């Protein structure tokens, strides 16, 4: 048995001694520092001292929290970011966001068997839930069994694939058996559906517990008013010394982006998420505010239906890639904060940088040559569906219509309500589509998306009907290879092959853009975009305290 061990908050990969895991070693394009202050304001200048305790932070959030039960996700990031404050998994995504690696969470030691099918977790010494009860192996087994049950874990049952069973070895040790090796298993259990919940309280009255839940995270829910706000108070039993700093956090739900920006300008809120790209320049000029951009696996994915003979033609798809003027799209729509992708998927761990896997260059002549070589030298007509009522899809559709038009592809734009776009996508009733208004990966490793697109016959390779051939086999090998170093070698080959085939098109990698007052310090965001407010503090509290 291969024994691996790590200490409090130590980086898992470093402790594992895996060279391919660290920041520079894998050379991953997406592995750079995830959070960057942009704009004239820059980083808050008051934040140079040591963190101080106290204060209330009001966060104006575009996505409402609808469920505080991490396994019954109901509203994407609205739920995820709230549960990230309250609970933790056995392992966690690096909370600083500086790497895409995993660090210890509820567990502080891990053994993995050589066949990659048995994981033995040792719980952190003295770790407690918010109510003071110790976390036991029973709680972990209870949580993971919920995770593995598709009737309970309805929303994320895909990431629980391969889970077998859990066994309580002793009070602090749990042994997890997988049905087959799942290389991304630790990443899969680092996210919300596997967040550790207290067995006793959930079994006693599940509905009541999840109205005002607590876990091992830095905060506990104090009040949850649907459609309005959720407030959190400090977890007095939190295990990281001195954290969290803030006494109280309040998420105000504000679906309207103008209302959110007004709330921050007015001082009614100290942070707001989802800054509309169209307002970046205006907010940049405000000296009282800081804009913050976080690279996350969010992308503008344009899906193609290979049942249409034109789109099944590789020359046509490559021509489309070359016909896209991404620089113009980035400047015109995303105000320059987007990143030109060198993958058909969002930026993920193990991605090779652009000098190894170059992105498609904007080259109309090359695109025309490819069209001439294709089965459709005279061009063709097609449709592009996109969701109505979102920031940028309409403008983007118009630019794409114009850019594809230049190589003889006539695009008819079809604007629909987002539920209908998704519905038609699920029924393969589309030519080109932007199927989801927010298209993100749930995990930082490519296993989820690569499997969806290249190795999922039951959903027709994510409704593309793409004949993935050899690439499907490469993905299958990648997702079942437990060795990190080996995976880091396998992925760039897949990334390159997929980009060459271009079964779908990644138009742009897009960051999350937040805005916060100069008083707010330590706004870390992990590689998945979740705020780690246990690190946040208010500079104004320094003055308030001697």
């Amino acid at each position, binding site marked *: 048995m291969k024994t691996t061990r790590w200490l409090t908050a130590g980086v898992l990969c470093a402790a594992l001694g895996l060279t391919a895991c660290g920041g520079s070693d894998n050379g991953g394009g997406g592995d750079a520092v995830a959070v960057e202050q942009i704009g004239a304001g820059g980083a808050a200048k008051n934040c140079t001292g040591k963190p101080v305790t106290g204060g209330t932070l009001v966060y104006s959030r575009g996505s409402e929290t609808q469920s505080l039960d991490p396994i019954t996700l109901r509203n994407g990031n609205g739920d995820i970011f709230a549960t990230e404050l309250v609970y933790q998994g056995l392992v966690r995504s690096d909370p600083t966001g500086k790497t895409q690696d995993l660090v210890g969470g509820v567990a502080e030691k891990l053994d993995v068997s050589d066949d990659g099918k048995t994981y033995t977790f040792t719980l952190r010494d003295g770790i407690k839930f918010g109510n003071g009860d110790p976390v036991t192996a029973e709680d972990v087994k209870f949580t993971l069994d919920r995770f593995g049950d598709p009737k309970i874990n*309805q929303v994320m049952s895909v990431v629980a694939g391969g889970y077998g069973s859990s066994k309580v070895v002793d009070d602090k040790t749990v042994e997890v058996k997988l049905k087959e090796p799942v290389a991304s298993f630790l990443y899969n259990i680092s996210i919300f559906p596997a967040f550790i919940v207290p067995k006793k309280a959930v079994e006693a009255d599940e509905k009541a517990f999840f109205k005002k839940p607590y876990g091992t995270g830095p905060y506990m829910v104090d009040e949850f*008013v*649907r459609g309005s706000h959720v407030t959190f108070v400090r977890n007095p039993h939190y295990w990281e010394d001195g954290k969290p700093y803030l006494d109280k956090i309040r998420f105000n739900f504000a679906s309207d982006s103008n209302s959110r920006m007004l709330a921050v300008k007015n001082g*009614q809120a100290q942070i707001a998420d989802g800054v509309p790209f169209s307002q970046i320049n205006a907010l940049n000029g405000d000296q009282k505010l800081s804009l913050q951009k976080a690279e996350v696996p969010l992308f503008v994915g344009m899906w193609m239906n290979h049942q249409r003979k034109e789109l099944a033609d590789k020359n046509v798809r490559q021509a489309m890639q070359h016909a896209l003027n991404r620089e113009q799209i980035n400047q015109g729509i995303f105000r320059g904060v987007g990143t030109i992708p060198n993958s058909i998927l969002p930026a993920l761990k193990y991605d090779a940088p652009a000098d190894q896997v170059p992105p498609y260059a904007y080259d109309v002549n090359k695109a025309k040559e490819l069209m001439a070589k294709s089965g459709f030298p005279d061009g063709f007509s097609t449709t592009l569906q996109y969701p109505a009522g979102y920031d940028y899809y309409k403008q983007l559709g118009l630019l794409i219509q114009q850019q594809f038009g230049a190589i003889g592809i006539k695009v008819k734009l079809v604007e629909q*309500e987002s*539920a209908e776009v998704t519905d038609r996508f699920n029924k393969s009733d589309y030519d080109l589509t932007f199927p989801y208004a927010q298209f993100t990966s749930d995990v930082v490793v490519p296993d989820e998306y690569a499997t969806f697109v290249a190795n999922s016959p039951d959903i027709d390779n994510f409704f593309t009907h793409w004949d993935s051939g050899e690439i499907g086999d490469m993905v299958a090998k990648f997702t079942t290879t437990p060795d990190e170093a080996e995976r880091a070698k396998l992925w760039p080959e897949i990334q390159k092959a997929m980009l060459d085939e271009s079964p779908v098109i990644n138009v742009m990698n897009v960051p999350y853009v937040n805005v916060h007052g100069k008083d707010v310090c330590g706004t870390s965001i992990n590689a998945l975009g979740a705020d780690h407010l246990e690190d946040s503090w208010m500079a104004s509290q320094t003055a308030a305290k001697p």
Partner: protein
Amino acid sequence: MLGYLLHRLALAVVVLFGLAVATFLIMHLVPGDPVQQTLGSRATPESIAFAREQLGLDDSLLAQFWAFVSNAVTGDLGYSLTLNAPVAEVVGQRVEPSALLIGYALLVSVVVGIPLAVIAAWRPNGVVDHAIRLLTTFAFAMPAFWVGLMLALVFGLGLKWFPVSGYETGIGGMLRTLTLPAITLGLTLSTIVARTLRSSLIEVLKSEYVEAATSRGLSPRRVMVKHAMRNAIMPTLTVLSVNLGLLIGYSIVVEAVFQIPGLGSLLLQSVQRRDYEIVQAIALIAGTAVVAISLATDLVQASIDPRVRLGR
């Protein structure tokens, strides 16, 4: 009078049943699967099948409608998949902010609309009358979301008299957080009030009994308030009750701009997510409110004016 009341009540039941059928059919016929919407792309077919079974979505449309109606009659509005909570609980929490907002907006529309109408009717086709008509045309044409944002910019961000968004309970909290939204919402209706009342006032002021009152030497103010207004306000009351539906519709936008956790924002979200149960419940509540108010208006008129209840 009793016969009239029974007749109107029977009609109200038919209207509400029709509304329930229409809402049910529209929600079920538009494309978009509720389970797919809620569970998303990371759910396995097994999970989706289980959720569909839980919700009874595999039953026939008729069976689903029957289940909805028979439960609704007993007060059971069902369980919301998208919010993972009983519909009655979710909807119940959202009634108060919406009802207060709409009540406050009605008040604003009356307080703004009636004086404008009186001033305009004082000298029909005078300069003031034209100015008011121009103003109300502008006010009516301005979209509510824009008016709301402008009010938030000026009175929230600029003057800091009110918060830019949010909702607080209690009298003070309500005045702080609902004033700007109520003005936004009430402004549209006040233009309707002003214009309806103006034309009926002008009509009434021309009638013989007003002439008689004036020739008896009553002051113009007394003629207007005591004599003309009483008769002229009737059509305005009808217009107000008819436009309650309009107000409910606009409240969806206003609630979104000011982040008020009311029924409007819940309705919008539930339509987008295809939450059949919640949409049906809100449609029923809003429909009942409109029917009840128009019934009450009719009854008030019938008790005052015999022509109404005798159907002449």
